[in-house]
């Protein structure tokens, strides 16, 4: 049963860290699919004809990698602590984010939707995967799947309940279907019990899912 070549030999998987990989070596020996081949061909042609260079492709990947939900959380925490910034953010989301140095490399506009005691906002893109990438990075996989996309606009309360978010009937739900040039970001309600917290402490409890609108922010939860 034990293999001396296997550094993990001799113990089971109950060893103190999350394990969702199977220890197989990482290789890329699968036959590339149709779209992978097309992507490679287009990339090579673009480089060959001098439209873009490999450095530009690498740089764009760096741009994408630098965008994470931590940026959105910083925006939310600033809005919670600075009423002037919040007003500017609600008036023009893109301009206010640019104020913090968050650039909109994809030339999208940003509308920030404020949750209140009366309104809960939820964001979806029924066409594909429009998402506020400049402030949140890449969307989660479930956001791109058809069940979420179809059900978010037709039975949002049921979808939210499946995320553990029960919205009382007296709170209205506004679902924003983002399909063209504008992207949306939810400004969640600041939870009770966070009075006097610093911007950094506040940012740490703001999760990606809260900024999509599928959950609320709670004072106890650690940011995911």
């Amino acid at each position, binding site marked *: 049963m034990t293999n001396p070549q296997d550094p993990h030999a001799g113990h089971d998987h109950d060893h103190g860290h999350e394990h969702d990989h199977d220890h197989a070596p990482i290789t890329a020996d699968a036959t590339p699919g149709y779209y992978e081949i097309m992507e490679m061909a287009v990339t090579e042609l673009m480089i060959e004809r001098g439209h873009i260079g490999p450095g530009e492709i690498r740089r764009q990947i760096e741009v994408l990698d630098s965008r994470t939900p931590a940026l959105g959380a910083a925006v939310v925490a600033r809005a919670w602590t600075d009423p002037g910034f919040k007003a500017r953010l609600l008036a023009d989301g893109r301009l206010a984010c640019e104020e913090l140095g968050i650039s909109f490399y994809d030339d999208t*506009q940003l*509308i920030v939707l404020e949750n209140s005691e009366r309104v809960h906002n939820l964001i979806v893109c*029924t*066409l594909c995967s429009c998402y506020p990438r400049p402030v949140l990075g890449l969307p989660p996989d479930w956001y791109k799947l058809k069940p979420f996309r179809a059900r978010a*606009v*037709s*039975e*949002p*309360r*049921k979808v939210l309940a499946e995320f553990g978010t029960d919205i009382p*009937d*007296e*709170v*209205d*739900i*506004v*679902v*924003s*279907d*983002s*399909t*063209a*040039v*504008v992207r949306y970001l939810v400004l969640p309600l600041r939870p009770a019990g966070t009075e006097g917290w610093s911007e950094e402490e506040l940012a740490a409890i703001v999760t990606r899912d809260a900024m999509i609108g599928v959950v609320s922010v709670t004072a106890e939860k650690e940011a995911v």
Partner: protein
Amino acid sequence: MTDSILDKVVPALGELPRFAVGDEVQVIKRFPVGHYRVPQYLRGHAGRVERIIEPAAVDNEEEGYGRNAGGKLHYYRVALPMPSLWPDYLGSPRDELHIEIYESWLEKK
């Protein structure tokens, strides 16, 4: 009061938005072949202009087909009542669906 020279400016066709905030509008019901940004589940449904999105944006439906790239259109955030979209809708009658729609897909109700 004398008329200011500024009151005599004539805007070009299409330069000003056709709809105002609060206008009752209808999403045009048409089904052209191809990929269009207005989801089919909203075509033919009525709503209210909630916000005019400024500035006017590139008409990406035309642009997507290589026509008139760079042409701009006015663009609105339209609010539609959820129960009007889904007959069996479960939730508050005040729940709404908001979406951005180009002027070319809207008509006055």
